[in-house]
Every structure is written in structure tokens, then in C-alpha cells.
């Protein structure tokens, strides 16, 4: 079950007009109604693509992951539990697709992170300087994430970006709750060290 952290993250990710929890929409997805599928895609795609990009570190593989995710969503649509928020389900599918893609390409995420990759359609308005600052900050975080090993990066992304609780992450990646907490803490420490080196 999604925990309080998860609910908060969902609320954070929500935007006006967001229909994640619209039961009628989810029932339409379940029936594979084209209109419902289109609306669901509009809501889910930015999240799926962003998570995929943060895992994989390049657009080409992120696109493959996104395609894989939506194929799986389509195939499993009739098994969607309309009484629950779909985000944990979608997060698990996305994570598994990323793991599969990582095994296939057999490589770490690319080191080069394009700051222009940030989607300005979802960015907070501000002066050009604000936008530049946000891009720069995001770029540093992305680079720190790239520095982590795959499991540690997954835990940080799932916890902080996707809003999954440690318990949910333990279930998704198949590790113990304690191990997830420990790895998360170490990952943050490593990222902090890495960022201090960059920002010095």
C-alpha cells in the first residue's frame, strides 16, 4: 500500500487537471477505451519518461523503456486495479523495464547529461536566470545520480523522485527494508561528497 510519503509525492507530482486518481479514467483504461488511454498517456508519460531517463541517462534508451512500459500497460490494462492509485503499479513496471534495458545494453548511464533535457512545459515560471539556475542544479543532481551504482541510484530515484517508501522499494527491488534504508543513506552520503567536489 502506498505510504504517506508516497501520497505526498503523488500530490507533488500532480498538476491542475491531473487525472491519476480518476476512477472513470482508470475504468476506461481497463476497457482499453482509446479516449481513456490517450488521457492516461498524457498524465503518465512525463513521469515514465523522466524516471526512465534518470535511470538510463540517455534519451535513446529512455525512449525504448517508455515504449516497453506502455506496451506492458496496454497488455495488462484489464488487470489494472481501479480502486488503487496507478502510480505504484506504473513505477514498478517502469523500474523493471529499466532493469531489463540495463541488462540488454550492459552499460552504466551515460555520463553526459544534457541540461536542455529539462522539460520546460512542466517547469515553474521564473526569470531566465531562475530557469538557468534550475537547469544547473538539476544537472548537478543528475551527475551525482550517474555516479551511483545501479541499485543505489534506483533507491534514490524511487524514494525521492517517485515517492516510494523504503518498504515499497524493498518490495520492488527484492531487498530487505533494512538494506534499502542502509543503501539509501550511503547513497545520499556519496552524492553529497560528489556534489561538494563539483561545487567547490
Amino acid at each position, binding site marked *: 500500500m502506498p505510504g504517506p510519503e508516497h501520497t505526498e509525492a503523488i500530490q507533488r507530482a500532480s498538476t491542475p487537471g491531473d487525472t491519476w486518481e480518476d476512477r472513470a479514467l482508470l475504468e476506461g483504461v481497463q476497457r482499453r477505451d482509446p479516449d481513456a488511454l490517450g488521457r492516461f498517456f498524457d498524465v503518465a508519460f512525463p513521469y515514465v519518461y523522466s524516471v526512465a531517463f534518470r535511470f538510463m541517462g540517455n534519451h535513446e534508451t529512455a*525512449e525504448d523503456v*517508455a515504449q516497453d512500459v*506502455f506496451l506492458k500497460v*496496454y497488455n495488462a490494462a484489464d488487470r489494472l486495479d481501479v480502486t488503487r492509485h496507478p502510480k505504484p503499479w506504473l513505477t514498478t513496471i517502469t523500474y523493471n523495464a529499466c532493469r531489463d534495458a540495463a541488462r540488454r545494453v550492459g552499460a552504466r548511464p551515460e555520463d553526459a547529461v544534457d541540461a536542455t533535457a*529539462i*522539460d520546460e512545459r512542466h517547469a515553474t515560471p521564473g526569470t531566465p536566470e531562475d530557469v538557468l539556475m534550475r537547469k544547473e542544479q538539476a544537472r548537478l*543532481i543528475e551527475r551525482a545520480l550517474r555516479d551511483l551504482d545501479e541499485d543505489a541510484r534506483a533507491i534514490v530515484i524511487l524514494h525521492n523522485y517517485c515517492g516510494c517508501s523504503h518498504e515499497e522499494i524493498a518490495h520492488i527491488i527484492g531487498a530487505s527494508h533494512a538494506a534499502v534504508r542502509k543503501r539509501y543513506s550511503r547513497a545520499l552520503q556519496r552524492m553529497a561528497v560528489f556534489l561538494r567536489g563539483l561545487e567547490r
Partner: protein
Amino acid sequence: MTDHPGKSPDEQELAKRVQDLPDVASDDAFREDLRSRFVHGGLESPAAETGTYDPEAGRRWWQWAVPVVGVAAAAIAAIILLNGGPAMHVLDVADGSAVRIDGAPAILHTGQVLRAGAEIEVPEGERVDLVARGVVLYEVTGGTRMTLPATPGRWFNRTVVCSVFVGELRLKTGVRFAGSELRVYTPDGIVEVTGTLLSIQCDAEGTCVCVLEGTARVGVNDDDLEPVTPGNRKIMLRDGTVKIIPVKPMHRDGVLEFNERVGNRLGDR
């Protein structure tokens, strides 16, 4: 924002910075294409769409396993085909003999191939000779009801079975039968044939196995199979009598007549 108890201020700040990461822009054309295919059910796995997507694909087990399995299956099929001995067919049949095959009336003709496992019933006064060329020759006499055995395989499946319910079956094995085994089940016992000329007679009193050449092992069940040598017969009567005694001329003459009539058509000379 997600609460982060037990973390240093630096770590809390870092967690928040990850949390605040903006969405990542995708290629608009890709997004629209994906949306369209998602909505209309036209998506395929990326690996299936682009052969270059998966650099490991060439080493996936199924890519070499499929042809290997195919070749193996073809080889197995060829071996099974070659293993099968010659089909059993009708060597001779009295004109217009109306037998029953699997309970249905049938008119047999010379050269007709008969299915192993089929039940054949030959009426009184008729006779059917069957042969698996070079392997075994049968005379199914009038008044006999039995199931037809398969032809033993060349390399495996070398033991074949049949049942004689009533009547008399005469048989002679050929050189290509060597190493094979025919087990004939009657209501009263088992006959294990490994190379011989014999007859098996089965009636309401019991079963009598007359051996003229070679040796057959005969018994009420598997545990008491014993060899019956040429010139002897083993009787297994339903009153419990079981014994080996010399073949009577009346039994011998019928088998000899069978051998003289069609023995040279076994096809192993």
C-alpha cells in the same frame, strides 16, 4: 515534501533537490507516435522493432537453440522413421474373405497394410496370412480373434506385443527379427518369442503353445516363464494344469503346413 527523519541537514537538502528534479523533455515526435500507437493498440516491444536495440541479442540462448532444436528434431524424426521396420501387410487371403477389423466388416486384399494394434477377427473356414518382410510371418487361422502386433524397431522399441483372445496363431520369425522380442498375451498366459516357428492355440479349455523350431519362453505370468524347446508344447489349462509335453502330430502338421505353404515368402532369403 517527503520527511527525512534521522538525516543530516545536508542529506535532507539533497533529498529535496532530487525530489524537485523537473520532468525531462522528450522528443515531441516520439511522444506523439508512442501515444498514437498506445491508444490504438499498435505497440510492439522495442527489441522486436529494432534489431540493433539489443547488442546481446545474437547471444541469446533461443537464437541458437531454435535451429539446434530444429536440427535435433529432424534427426530424431529421421531416426524414428528409419527405426520403423517394414509394415505388416496381407500376404495372402482367401478370395472374398470377410474379416472384421476393430469390430467392423472388412474385405482384405493382398498387399493391404494393417495397423498395429488393430483387432482382427477371422471367421471359421477363412485364413489370413500376414507378413512384415524379413521379420515375421503370421497365419491367423479361422476362428481367431487377436490384436495385431507392431513390427519391432531396428534399434529401439524392439519389444512388441499382441493378444490372442481365441483361436490359433501360427508364426515364423525371420532373420531381421534377431534381437527383437514378441510377447503374446492369451487369457491363460504369456508367450515370449525371440526367434522360432510355433503356434499358439487358445480355446475355452486353455492355451497350448507348440514349438517346432527355436525356443520360446512360456508361462502363466512373467514370474514362471520357462523355455519350451522344439518338439514340445506347454499347456496352461483353466483348471490350473500347467505342463510341458511333446507336440502331437495334429498340432505339428498344421504348423508345418503353414511353413511349407508360405514360409519361403517371409522374404529373408
